[in-house]
């Protein structure tokens, strides 16, 4: 099966910023992404879990974005502007995708 090179960018960010991130992505021309719920986590700002959480419904989400390698910088710039002052992490993996025309 024919596959095409792509980057898989995963952004773990506070739920309160989700719409700001996706807005910024759309402005940067990135219209394909998937948002996964997050159950809990731990980082420099401590540990948290959705269930035992003081403000339910806050918490974090994971935004996964498959993108052509040449478009990645734009995405990272847009994402970074939103994530920068906040907690959360951004990671990038090399990937391949089917149906490249969709990206």
């Amino acid at each position: 099966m024919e596959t095409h090179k792509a980057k898989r960018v995963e952004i773990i960010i506070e739920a309160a910023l989700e719409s700001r991130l996706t807005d910024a992505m759309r402005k940067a021309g990135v219209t394909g992404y998937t948002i996964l719920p997050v159950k809990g986590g731990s980082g420099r700002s401590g540990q948290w879990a959705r269930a035992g959480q003081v403000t339910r419904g806050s918490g974090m989400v994971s935004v996964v974005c498959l993108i052509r390698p040449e478009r990645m910088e734009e995405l990272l710039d847009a994402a970074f502007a939103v994530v920068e002052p906040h907690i959360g992490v951004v990671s990038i993996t090399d990937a391949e995708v089917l149906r490249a025309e969709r990206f």
Partner: protein
Amino acid sequence: MAEILELAAGNLISPIILSFVLGLLAALARSDLTIPEAVAKGMSIYLLFAIGFKGGAGVAAHGVDTTLVLTLIVAGILSFGLPFIGFALLGLMSKFSTIDKAAVAAHYGSISIVTFVAATSVLEAQGIASEGYMVAAAAVMEAPAILSALWIVARAGGKSSGTVDAGLYREILLNGSIVLLVGSFFIGAITGKDGLDTISPFIVAPFQGVLCLFLLDMGLVAGRGLRESRGELGLGPIAFGMLMPLVGSSLGLLGALAAGLSPGGAALLMTLSASASYIAVPAAMRVALPEARPSIYLTLSLGVTFPFNLTVGIPLYTALSTAFVGG
């Protein structure tokens, strides 16, 4: 005084307080008891809808009296003003950064709707009537405190890297709790007694029971918060978490006298002023003041002030309001 103690004792062994205590103990003992997030949200939607609707139906029944507008104005002023007092007090009682102090102050200007709900059910149990539109006062008090906190930070030159944009203001003003509370208040006011009769087996009869389970969850969450932030708060801040409600409720009492509220209404305005937000404000703080530490403001609001109001505060405010406002 004896009366206050008696009230407090009676209040302490009610199912709702004990449910909170159960949750607290379970969390501190590290039990895995948890109420699913969706169920907890569902219960809070139920409580907001019920309390809003009943308030509105109350207004429909007793009519809009002249104190309504006055009360809403007083409520707005309280929410705007309390953060400044809180910020000043924290300057004396804590070593927090400017941003942390402002964030905490915002919580105490805003309100906790569950504390309000618990107060209404204490009043009901004692047969003390209150103005239906106190629900509207609660809604009015949710947001202004956030603006005060942002203003405090800006004035103090404390620079936060957070995002204060149009989206944030919309989120604050149209946040789910406010919309649901105000919306169901209007539905109650429009459909009146007929509407209330249709749905009272849903919003009136099981109300206390749902409140028990909700407070069980609040206890679990507060207990887990306390356990995780153990040691982060000094004695000063903890004292603040009990002093500030007293200050807030005193100003609330003055406001109630100024607005001409009934004893029941006064008790509720005192409770609102004394209570600290744990939903709307924390969410806004994460966006606007991300450097402010949730472990501080949430522990104070939910781990110190909420239990304080639930156990000591509400009976005290009720006793004071009946003593001072007459009735």
